[in-house]
């Protein structure tokens, strides 16, 4: 094989989630307490419903004329109804009604709704256009009312009740099925299968249906709960089953009539309904979480930084706190994967115009099982005023995390475990949110990768600029707007007054990034961080934006960190380049030196693998 490259990333072998879905899901289901509770309640309910004749002390319709409407007694622990029927027995048999009606109606709803949704989603075109209008129209009819109407037409009884409630929910299933089918149809692997020649039907059944099973199960669980609520409501009103068939809703109807003299009658059936519906809802949530493998907990961002541990060993810390400009004698060589020592920024005198000084930064992520993953290890960098430092690395190199650490924007669960981050001499690591805010914008500015996502889509560009400006200076609205106009002009946006009142979607990618740069510059920062800021742009637009950045640097003189995976971008814009690989600093050098005489094998291999339009890397033709 001619692929003798040293850099092939190893296999990723985390447990395949979707693959062994069912077993995994069951395990996850068992671990969450609320889901466990739900499963238990449902199980109890099923047992009670099935074993009702054995559990209930009386037949539910058995009358006892000696004790009508009594409160709780020894014979009748929950009291009696108006003809002396035992309420406890009615409660127990009510479980049966609830489950039968709920189960039946959800089944009906699925049998009607799912095929409709499949047809609409799969066929698309006119079928879908008309069909989804139909779904919209059905939305205008409140569910309970549909139930009323069906009962009005067909009368009362178990079958009608099941059908009525089924019709209430069938459109929901149709809608959901349609949405999932539409999404799946558009997926690239469906198109790939198409290109391979596989038949449409084979593709749909092979790929869409399995993806439906999970969400259907979740919806079914939730609707079981909703169906019980609807049945209870209908029975409460006397529209449900006949009077001889016990139901919780019917019991509540009776309780409503005797509010004054027997207020406690409402408690038992109501609690029964509440617990049952709660259990089904939690079950649905549990299935949902289990299938998507989501962690539902997060952590507050500011708490993250508070966990900073003091850097070790003590001698280094002493050296740092002494703010000595002398060389750091204990500078541990940063091990590069190829074995030979790299050139850390550590063992050089700290120049006076250093804006950013990162020493031995180590960033870790906390796993749920308590272990930690090291994302960045012992990285030291320095950026001076007016200098552009390129941070070059492939995916997984940790370059973005480093930037986030400097900005204090590390995601929950990720923290700067060791090291120091100094901006103009001020230590940023371990700062509170408030302290950081003082630095942000005036000390630091950032431009992120995706142009449209960098700006709030529902606010005008002017509004966002003004908000940022007013966060730093007490400006009147007019002055802020004027300054915003100046900023837009600075970044090369034409027709400034009109643009200020426009929304981000009205800007092209390159223009939106210019706006993002304007926002970053609003506070006149000393350091500007560009995190893959041009990666999503077309080549011509990218070069315009990069030229803009160079012009701004020439005019304003700030320090810039340009994070990129693109060697060409580094060659065109950076004064010095730091190469990162798997969280470690491989090499730092002047840009010309890096390209001419790479010291590390990794750097050399990167350069060798980089095809450009102006020179031949390897002759193919």
């Amino acid at each position, binding site marked *: 094989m001619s692929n003798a490259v040293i850099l092939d990333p190893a296999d990723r072998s985390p447990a395949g989630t979707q693959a062994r879905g069912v077993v995994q899901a069951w395990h996850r289901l068992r671990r969450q307490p609320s889901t466990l509770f739900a499963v238990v309640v449902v199980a109890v309910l099923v047992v009670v419903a099935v074993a009702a004749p054995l559990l209930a002390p009386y037949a539910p319709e058995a009358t006892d004329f000696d004790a009508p409407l009594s409160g709780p007694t020894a014979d009748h622990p929950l009291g009696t109804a108006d003809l002396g029927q035992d309420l406890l027995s009615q409660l127990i048999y009510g479980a049966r009604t609830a489950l039968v009606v709920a189960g039946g109606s959800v089944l009906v709803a699925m049998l009607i709704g799912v095929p409709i949704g499949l047809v609409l989603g799969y066929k698309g075109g006119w079928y879908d256009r008309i069909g989804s209008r139909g779904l919209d129209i059905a939305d205008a009819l409140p569910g309970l009312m549909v139930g009323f109407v069906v009962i009005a037409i067909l009368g009362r009884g178990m079958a009608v009740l099941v059908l009525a409630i089924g019709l209430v929910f069938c459109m929901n299933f149709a809608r959901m099925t349609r949405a999932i089918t539409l999404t799946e149809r558009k997926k690239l692997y469906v198109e790939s299968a198409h290109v391979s020649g596989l038949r449409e039907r084979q593709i749909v059944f092979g790929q869409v249906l399995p993806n439906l099973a999970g969400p259907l199960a979740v919806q079914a669980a939730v609707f079981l709960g909703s169906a019980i609520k609807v049945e209870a409501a209908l029975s409460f009103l006397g529209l449900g089953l006949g009077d001889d068939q016990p139901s919780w809703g019917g019991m509540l109807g009776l309780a409503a009539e005797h509010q004054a003299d027997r207020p406690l009658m409402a408690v038992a059936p109501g609690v029964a309904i509440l617990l049952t519906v709660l259990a089904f809802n939690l079950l649905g949530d549990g299935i949902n979480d289990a299938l998507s493998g989501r962690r539902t907990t997060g952590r507050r961002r500011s708490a993250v930084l508070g966990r900073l541990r003091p850097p070790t060993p003590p001698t280094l810390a002493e050296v740092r706190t002494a703010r000595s400009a002398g060389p750091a004698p204990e500078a541990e060589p940063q091990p590069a994967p190829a074995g030979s020592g790299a050139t850390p920024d550590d063992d050089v005198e700290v120049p006076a115009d250093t804006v950013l000084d990162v020493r031995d930064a180590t960033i870790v992520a906390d796993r749920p099982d308590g272990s930690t993953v090291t994302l960045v290890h012992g990285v030291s960098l320095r950026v001076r005023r007016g200098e552009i430092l390129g941070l070059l690395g492939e995916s997984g190199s940790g370059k973005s995390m480093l930037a986030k650490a400097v900005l204090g924007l590390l995601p929950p669960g990720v923290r700067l475990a060791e090291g120091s981050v100094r901006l103009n001499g001020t230590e940023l690591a371990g700062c509170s949110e408030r302290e950081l805010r003082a630095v942000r914008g005036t000390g630091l500015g950032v431009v992120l990768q995706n142009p449209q996502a960098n700006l709030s889509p529902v606010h005008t560009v002017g509004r966002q600029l003004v908000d940022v400006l007013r966060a730093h200076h007490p400006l009147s609205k007019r002055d802020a707007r004027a300054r915003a106009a100046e900023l837009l002009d600075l970044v090369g946006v034409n027709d400034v007054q009109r643009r200020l009142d426009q929304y981000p979607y009205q800007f092209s990618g390159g223009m939106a990034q210019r706006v993002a740069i304007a926002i970053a510059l609003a506070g006149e920062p000393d350091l500007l961080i560009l995190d893959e800021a041009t990666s999503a742009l077309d080549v011509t637009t*990218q070069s315009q934006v990069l030229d803009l950045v160079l012009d701004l640097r020439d005019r304003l003189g700030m320090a810039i960190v340009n994070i990129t995976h693109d060697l060409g971008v580094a060659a065109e814009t950076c004064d010095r380049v730091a190469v990162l690989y798997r969280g470690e600093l491989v090499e730092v050098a002047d840009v010309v030196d890096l390209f001419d005489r790479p010291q590390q094998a990794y750097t050399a291999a990167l350069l060798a693998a980089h095809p450009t339009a102006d020179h031949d890397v390897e002759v193919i033709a």
Partner: protein
Amino acid sequence: MNDSQPLLDVRDLHVDYDVAGAAGWRRRTLTVVKGVSFTIAPGETYGLVGESGSGKSTTGRAILRLADVSGGQVLVDGQDVATLGRRTPLAYRRAVQAVYQDPTASLNPRHRVGRALTETLARHGLGDRDARRRRAAEAFEQVGLTTDHLTRYPSQLSGGQLQRVAVARALVLEPRLVVCDEAVSALDLSTQAQILALLSDLQAASGVSYLFITHDLGVVRHVAHRVGVLRGGELVEQGATRQVLDHPQHEYTRALLAASPSSHPDGRDERRAERAARRAAAAQATTAQEAA
């Protein structure tokens, strides 16, 4: 077979795209590809270069018969496939394959990766179960994977490995033309180099042709024999790769090359000054136009 006849002959291709209006009823028609013509010989790699919105992907989709052709011809071995109607002949699917940009999205996450190959082979009636398995294993080895990988799920493989699977799936049918739509754009630099080398090795071994769609001029120089530059649905320039890239004739090609990041910092100040001069000249031209 006629040796001088090109494998793919695209003549004056037009492709329209329907845009949904606000209420879902009104539709506008945009012409995304406007009269594109080029040929690809057997065993050749043709690079189709353009920025976003240039119509390069749509051209690829039209050739794959995933988009409707509204004008012109697409001749494969002399036969016009643009007029074939709704159903695509199975033979065509065998002859023309694709490798896409996003390796994780092009494979079904629920199926083992080997299944993508065996299913395809089964559909085309190529051998019994054992034969198909053998062929899949061979294809995997050809792309640098092991038979172990056959039973893995996509979530267990890296981006580079998944792209190799995609290449294997495309080539297991022994097609004549493979449309590579930004096939290396989502990969790391090192992985990208590997996949490009793999593609070129396979071409040398089997004589397959590639339509290599990309926005990256560096990649196209590295991999294509001939190149065509698309802008706004029109082919502004085409020719032998070195010729077009070293001596661009069209203004747009020149601008594209000037904007492409280079391989070395040397001369970057000059390039920057040149770009600034070009922008100033363009600005002057527009103000002159507006004044007139």
